[in-house]
């Protein structure tokens, strides 16, 4: 052994942890890039939503369809759901990337990392950041469609949106890991994640505005109380709303609530994931 070979011993522990963090993050990103299926889903999903749902429902959103068409709100349905499609893509990708926790456990890779000098917290952080990065990239795929959805974006909008998307992706990836830690098989995860993703998404004021006074036609119909309550207690509502504020300048709530909700949810979910991970 030469002195050189002992070099690893002399490195500061922090540097080792950061290097390892980078390694685990890079692995997650590389795996995602090489997974064709995930990429196809990430591209086709927003196109489907924007083209079919968005364009298809566009007329029904513009107040009265019969008689004189009035534009009560200054945006179309397509514009309205556009930020929500960004959220949808992030939601799917985040939760999906958490599946890799199960893969790692099933195929022994996790052990290889657990016998390294990395702390468990750093291992988990690397995984979550990696998953979140991929999710943000998938969110950006939607932003590329902005022009077709008639959503004009400035650079400052994009940067603000990226910040919100990153916070959201972190929280949702942590959520995925929490779920994956509880469910130990692929099959179970598929069922459970669908049971979480879709209800969470549909009750987040993503595809319809909460405030029925938004358009005159809708004002006549009030939503049932339970639905309003569901939407209001769904944390995702506030994330969608914050993003909508940035992308199309329409807020139903104070955008600061959205940021606060995402930060708190991210911290809480990550902590739960870490506790599970330490114990497992």
């Amino acid at each position, binding site marked *: 052994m030469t002195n050189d070979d002992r070099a690893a011993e002399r490195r500061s522990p922090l540097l080792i942890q950061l290097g390892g963090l980078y390694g685990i993050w890079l*692995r997650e990103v590389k795996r995602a890039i090489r997974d064709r299926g995930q990429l196809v889903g990430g591209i086709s999903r927003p196109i489907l939503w924007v083209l079919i749902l968005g364009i298809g429902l566009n007329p029904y959103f513009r107040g009265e369809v019969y008689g004189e068409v009035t534009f009560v709100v200054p945006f179309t349905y397509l514009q309205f759901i556009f930020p929500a499609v960004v959220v949808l893509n992030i939601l799917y990708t985040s939760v999906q990337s958490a599946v890799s926790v199960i893969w790692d456990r*099933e*195929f022994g890779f996790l052990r290889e990392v657990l016998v390294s000098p990395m702390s468990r917290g750093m291992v988990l952080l690397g995984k979550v950041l990696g998953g979140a990065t991929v999710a943000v990239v998938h969110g950006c795929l939607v932003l590329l469609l902005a022009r077709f959805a008639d959503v004009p974006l400035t650079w400052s909008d994009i940067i603000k949106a990226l910040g919100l998307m990153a916070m959201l992706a972190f929280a949702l990836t942590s959520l995925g890991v929490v779920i994956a830690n509880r469910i130990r098989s692929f099959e179970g995860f598929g069922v459970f994640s669908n049971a979480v993703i879709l209800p969470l998404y549909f009750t987040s004021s993503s595809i319809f505005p909460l405030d029925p006074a938004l358009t005159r036609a809708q004002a006549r119909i009030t939503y049932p109380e339970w639905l309003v309550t569901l939407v209001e207690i769904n944390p995702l509502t506030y994330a969608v709303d914050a993003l909508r504020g940035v992308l199309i300048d329409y807020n139903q709530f104070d955008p600061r609530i959205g940021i606060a909700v995402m930060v708190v949810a991210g911290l809480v979910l990550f902590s739960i994931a870490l506790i599970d991970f330490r114990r497992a």
Partner: protein
Amino acid sequence: MPSTPNSGPAVSIDNLSKRYGRTLALDGISFDVRDREFFALLGPNGAGKTTLLHILCTILRPDSGTALVGGFDVVRQSLAARRRLGIVFQEPSLDDRLTVRENLELHGLVFGVPRALRRQRIEKMLELVELTDLSDKPARTLSSGMKRRLEIARALIHDSEIILFDEPTAGLDAQSRERIWSYVRTLRSERKITVLVTTHYIDEVEGCDRVCVVDQGKLLALDTPDALKRDHCRQVLRVVPKSDDHRQEILNRYADHLEGEEGESILLSSSDSLVEAVLAEYGTRLRSLSIDTPSLEAVFLSLTGRELRDQAAGPRERTLAFGRRGGEHTR
């Protein structure tokens, strides 16, 4: 950085026990592995070999007893202990979607090997296990023997001093097995390493410094292969006399050494002095004389009362079984 002089044993295990529910996987086992030793752990399925290695690499906690790796307690100083270990797990643990080189890179990163040294080691280890040409192929495309070689290379990217191999050759063909052992020999001559290996193939154990036979979590014997054979198996002298007269004579003369008769030959429990005596006295009247050297196989049989299974499960069966258990060993 806590550091102790490397004069003590590489691995020191004292009264280690581990229980899974009702199965007692390790039952108060104690032994030392000396520095730079080539140490083999031999035992049938379920003997507790993997459990022991998992405790050493700190992914399992023992119920009682202590284990030191390079002088560091695996429970209280697990980080320092881990840094000294290189492990090849029984179940495959490569990332299939990364390339050969990326798998090694990742290992170097999480073990904090500085960039320049990392590059250099990766090249060297790829060369050692003869995977340089395949370094940019995804790990998924390697054969099971190649995957095993890659895992061995990986365990040596950081400054590992003590290498734990959990059945490195199980399920591989004879050629791959021989290759793997030749890498291990090369390594031992190039780097100061202690090797602790578990295996099912008795013939592979012959070349070790010491062998530890375990069964049902207990240590049955621990010694050099030669000493084990001497102590647990009797050497047998097999002589074939030229005629029946001589035969009768020998039978009478060595009645108290008689082990039995097999066709024409007479089996005598032997020692070196007996061999000399027989040769001196009957040398010219024997058609043949041979000494049956005891095999480790026989040692194992006499110690455990069982044969080692002759064939370890192939990698495919191993992965399937692993999946069925729900990825057990991952705690």
